[in-house]
């Protein structure tokens, strides 16, 4: 008996050693975040440098743009990055923060649903908004903090005729006559999926109904087959479109394709193809909507080793300087900092518009709505995708 008791004791002791000290570490990171929020750039920079020394700030990011090195140039802090695509970043998050193994300090990730329900609810990620920027960021973009917005828009080949106005209405994409619009498989790309889910909100139902009436000349009437008009559009669009795996493929397919061919792809791809014959539907004033807008969120790991440096990076991202250096040189990226609306030369060249312009014509990822209908909607969509 004594032996057993001793063994048990030993076991308990071992366990207590092995048990993560996360409780303690968490408070440290939280404390750091709370403090950092109040600091000025210079204070935070000093604190971060003191904390990190010659070590690397580790950023796992859905977007590879963080490879850009102006942050290091400005602060002297080295960064190590990796950009696991789509949901793979959550895999790492679970294995790392979930097991209290240090992996990264800062995560830049997409998919509001996973972020909220998988990561934040598990306490793996912490939100950080510097006080300095609170006034210039929309409340809805603050928790979780959106680092940047990116858009995918309907673009078609006008065959050189800039006045073609081929697509005047979003319902055209569901018509057999315009079959083959290229689209990134939503089951492989969460921003595409969340776009479809967001589309089922009342706001977009109404917009679709309006467009329907304008295109078909009659009111939309439910046939009972679909829950609402959005689902009908989604179904018909999915059946009518062609799944292509990469944005760059869609871009080159449309650019090199026959006049009239269209695709829904990342706006910024315009610069990597011969865009002479490409027209962005939004500029033609398409009815319904012209594409989608999705956010990349910035979150600090609950077990971050260098929370101050991570916060510093977020500050940099939100600053006009950081935005321009990391994202803004390109088009199709939009800062949540409302004081940063100036378009870069390149953006102007491709006729990009500020966030406010897109606000009205693109389907934004809608966390509240997505949260409500996520599984019902995604199940239907995945079924439809598979049955193509």
């Amino acid at each position, binding site marked *: 008996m004594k032996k057993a008791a001793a063994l048990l004791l030993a076991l308990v002791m071992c366990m207590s050693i092995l048990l993560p000290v996360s409780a303690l570490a968490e408070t440290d990171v939280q404390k750091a975040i709370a403090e950092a929020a109040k600091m000025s750039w210079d204070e935070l920079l000093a604190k971060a440098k003191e904390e990190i020394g010659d070590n690397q700030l580790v950023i796992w990011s859905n977007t*590879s743009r963080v490879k*850009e090195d102006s942050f290091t140039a400005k602060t002297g802090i080295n960064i*190590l*990055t*990796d*950009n*696991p*695509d*789509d*949901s*793979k970043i*959550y895999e*790492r998050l679970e*294995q*790392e923060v979930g*097991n209290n*193994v240090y*992996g990264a300090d800062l995560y830049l990730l997409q998919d509001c649903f*996973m972020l909220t*329900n*998988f990561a934040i609810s*598990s306490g793996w990620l912490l939100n950080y908004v510097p006080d300095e920027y609170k006034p210039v960021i929309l409340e809805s973009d603050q928790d979780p903090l959106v680092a940047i917005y990116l858009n995918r828009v309907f673009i078609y*080949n006008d065959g050189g005729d800039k006045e073609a106005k081929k697509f005047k209405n979003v319902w055209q994409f569901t018509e057999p006559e315009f079959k*083959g619009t*290229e689209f990134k*498989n939503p*089951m*492989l790309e*969460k921003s595409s999926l969340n776009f479809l889910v967001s589309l089922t909100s009342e706001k977009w139902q109404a917009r679709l109904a309006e467009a329907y009436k304008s295109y078909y000349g009659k009111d939309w009437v439910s046939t009972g087959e679909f829950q609402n008009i959005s689902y009908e559009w989604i179904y018909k669009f999915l059946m009518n479109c*062609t*799944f292509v*795996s*990469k944005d*760059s493929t869609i871009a*080159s*397919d*449309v650019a*090199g*394709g*026959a006049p009239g*061919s269209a*695709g829904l792809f990342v706006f*910024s*791809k315009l*610069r*990597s193809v*011969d865009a002479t014959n490409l027209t962005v539907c939004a500029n033609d004033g398409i009815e319904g909507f012209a594409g989608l807008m999705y956010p990349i969120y910035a979150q600090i790991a609950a077990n971050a080793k260098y929370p101050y440096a991570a916060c510093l990076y977020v500050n940099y991202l939100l600053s006009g300087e950081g935005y321009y250096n990391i994202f803004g*040189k*390109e088009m199709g990226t939009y800062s949540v900092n409302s004081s940063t609306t100036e378009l*870069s*030369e*390149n953006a102007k060249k491709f006729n990009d518009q500020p966030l406010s312009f897109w606000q009205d014509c693109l389907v934004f990822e809608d966390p509240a709505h997505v949260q409500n209908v*996520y*599984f*019902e909607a995604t199940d239907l969509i*995945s*079924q439809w*995708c*598979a*049955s193509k």
Partner: protein
Amino acid sequence: MNKSDAKKPSRFSNALYAVRSYFSVQANVLIVVFAILLIVLTVYPLYSVFRSAFTVGKMEAMRYNTLMHTKLSDGDLTLLNFRMLLTDEFKFWRPLWNSLRMSAYASLIAILLGGTFAFLITRTDIRYKKFFSSVFIFPYIMPSWTLALVWKNVFANSHVGTGIVGMLESLTGVCVPGWAVYGIFPCSLVMGIHYAPFAYILIGGTLRNMDANLEEAATILQASRGRILRKITVPIVMPALFSTVLLVFSSTMASYAVPVFVGSPGNFFVLSTQLSQLYNTMATRGQSYVMTIVLILFGVMLLGINTWFTGKRKSFTTVTGKSGQVSYIKLGRANTLIAIILVIVLFLIAIFPIISFALESMVEVQGNYSTLTLKYWLSREDVGGFAVNAGHGILFNGMIWSAMWGSIKLSLIVSLIVGTCGILIGYAVARKRGTKLAGLVSGLAFFPYLVPSMAFGAIFLAVSSRLTFLRGTLLLLVIVGSIKYLPFASRSGTNSMMQLSGEIEEAAVIVGASWPKRMLRVLFPIQKSSFISGYLLPFISCMRELSLFVLLTTDGMLITKLLSYFDEKAVSQMSNGINLLIVIIVLLVNFTINKLTGASIDKGVGGN
């Protein structure tokens, strides 16, 4: 009398002796060591797969609770994953059927193409053998999707998709129908062509080693050529044929890039694409593991058929140490014709993609050849333009070269480990032929092949979060790569060892050559070429692997990661250039080894 009784060993020492004498045979040591090693290294992944299939994760619980009003929580046991998937026609049964068809066609195409080619090279007096032989393996060296891309570039036409005018249409005006551009046809064909070198290497190896007398004996019996082929040649290469089918079928079942490239646009969906969709969504990940189990079961079934077949039929020893004369079938007037056809086919599947890489890396605007520039190779300024951090031109790009070195280092280490293990496994399995342990080892060695790369990487990510000293290290990548590519080497090792008659080794045993000496001086040199292909295949695969390592690495560690970065950023000049670079490096390695050892991946048996 009593004395000898007293000397009689006890039971214990008898047992000890039995163990000792069992392990005094190297093949026994090897088979036991590998059995244990493989059990350890494959059982955990297998366990993970099964656990994930039978339990619900956090997001899955949420999904089931919402949709099916269950009250599951994270980690609960469930059969729902099975129920949901196996009752789903569109996510499971139809793609399964598509996968099976695609894999069967691809195997058939690979065997027909590779087998015919192997026959032409080893059995006839076809012209330019050396050239054909080394070029034929290009399609395997290049990532499979590059062929898919070529396919699209050639056959796309104004009646298909967005109406891009492909080469065929622009040159001849001929438009092939849609099914020939996208769907099962191009998928199977591209996979078949991609894996044809496999068939060539495996079948060619056997044919080359096969005593021509075997065929000549039949010629004397006045059997027709067709009959000889059917009754003599084919049965003798049967084991190689089966190995080919096994590898090609499983590889095709698991292949992802090609079906996505030329399948999905034609609404042709296969198991692997569905698997990756389910896998990519945490809420349906369990179902992807159910699918993995199905893939594993298919692999096990194939493996079973293979073992049953090779076990039941006599295994053919083709190198006996008694050398026969090789006589080539004279092609006569057909020689030139066949050579011309081969040149055309090889140009399309092997040379053309390389040229297109080179061209695409040298144009400013994709597809517009009037904008030729060497900037992406030679520039000492950032070539990414305003958007991307691309760094200097490829030749002066530190990022690219350090990642390339990372890839080469990893591939070298992996191929050394895997190749050596493959030979040892082959030796052990061949010597212990027919025993249960040998069956176990060759089966287990094949198992990693059946787990999709993505899932395999994820499983080892989990391992590394428990064994934290492995995290982010080269060692972890080496371990994962070694396990994943063992099947190649173990197959080729087993095949070539099986061909060596026991006498060849015994002749060295008798004169007292130690085991290492027998391996190094006798067995290895005889089967040098096939063993070296056991080293080269993992090297090639490792060089162009991404999905296996993607979760375990950080930016800049591997060239494929950089490749996908440029790809994503649509700096096609850089991605094409890197692709070209990978192909050139692999070819260089192949060429160097060829010059140094006289063996190369495309040769069955060298030695002279």
